[in-house]
């Protein structure tokens, strides 16, 4: 373990453990949604914690969770790059131009009085995981991890306005998928 030599301080390790390990489930959840693969998610989270320990000395905030998430996101992006360079692996959807096009209006055809159906957890997980990036990432940080727009903006390295428009699109897409699911279920 190359980083270990530089981090052989038990007191620092204890502080790191106290501060970072409580967020393990959160980090793993984010990695599962970003990478959509349990094994890759485990590897990414482990790499994230190694990097975090390495930089823990210089850590002065923000809150621990967004700090870990920013590291984790970088690890996941490296994994995307690796997948993209492996011809057999599925190339992930990153429709950059989707951000430029206006919001989807297809949900407006549904009657305004129609209420959304309640789906089970497995279906909701699947619908969220099916969202395209970068909308999925923003959506998960907001709806599942309850981070503020400012925290999300810092993690994804984009202005708050971009976070807001990505979230708008993510929710519009999810609403459409949510209603389309009903058609399947019939």
């Amino acid at each position, binding site marked *: *373990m190359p980083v*270990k030599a530089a*981090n052989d*301080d*038990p007191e620092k*390790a*204890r*502080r*790191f*453990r*106290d*501060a970072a*390990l*409580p967020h*393990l*489930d959160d*980090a*793993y*959840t984010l990695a*599962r949604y970003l990478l959509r693969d349990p094994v890759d*998610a*485990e590897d990414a*989270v*482990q790499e994230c*914690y190694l990097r975090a*320990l390495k930089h823990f000395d210089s850590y*002065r*905030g*923000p*809150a*621990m*969770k967004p700090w870990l998430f920013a590291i984790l996101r970088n690890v996941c992006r490296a994994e995307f790059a690796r997948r993209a360079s492996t011809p057999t692996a599925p190339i992930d959807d990153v429709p950059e131009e989707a951000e430029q096009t*206006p*919001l989807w209006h297809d*949900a*407006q055809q549904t009657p*305004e009085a129609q*209420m*959304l159906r*309640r*789906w089970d*957890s497995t279906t*909701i*997980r699947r619908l*969220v995981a099916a969202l395209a990036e970068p909308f999925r990432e923003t959506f998960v940080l*907001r*709806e*599942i991890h*309850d981070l*503020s*727009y*400012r925290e999300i903006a810092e993690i994804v390295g984009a202005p708050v306005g971009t976070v*807001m*428009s990505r*979230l*708008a699109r993510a*929710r*519009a897409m999810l*609403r459409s998928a*949510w209603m389309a699911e009903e058609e399947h279920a019939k």
Partner: protein
Amino acid sequence: MTCDEAEILLHALIDGELDAGNTRAVEDHIAGCPRCAAQLRDYREMSKMIAGADVRYKAPLELRRRIEASLPQQAQVPSRRAVLRGFAMGSAVSALAATGLVAIVLRSDDEARIQSEVVSAHLRSLQAGHLTDVISTDQHTVKPWFNGKLDVAPPVVDLTAQGFTLIGGRLDYVDARPIGAIVYRRRAHVINLFVAQTASTERRAAKTETLQGFNIRRWSDRGLNYWAVSDLAADELAEFGEKFETAMRSGTAG
């Protein structure tokens, strides 16, 4: 306001990120636009259903073990000789402390140690599912609960109207002494307000520090030391501290 603008801004409304002026503008638009109103209703409903569903994943035990194993191990159990030496040192320190000299020298060190203990107590409260011993949003229930458990009656202030929901109280241990913790919630963020007695009755103005990613706002007033700990942003924690102190001054504590 047009539908295109409202379609973006209504998300900030749902997420509580909109200022008063824009909130008014969006609400006015929605009142007259059934299509945007339906969207707002659906997005709120979706958020609620997602919050109520089990959409998180639990890290596999094996992953936890792997990360633990990659951390440097804890210090070895101290040898008998080291324990004895520590004991001798301790006696020397106590003897000096009696003169009152060391107390001043040690103070900043002590402060740092207690701060780190307060953060650890905050973390424990989040981890162990042991946030509160008494669950109540009523200050008149929380305050009497502390009776007989502590040598000091911690003031319990209801700040729900100011955006900080009182959720209960807890007995914790800091600096090897029982200490009262009053628990508040702001959105999904927990605030632990630790209260301990101090010999000094002078008022010390609040200052905020960051430790391990938590903000700690510390102040003293009327013989009590306060530490408010949370992962809330520093400005919001400052708002909490100010509201608390204002309420204390106006005498609304339960």
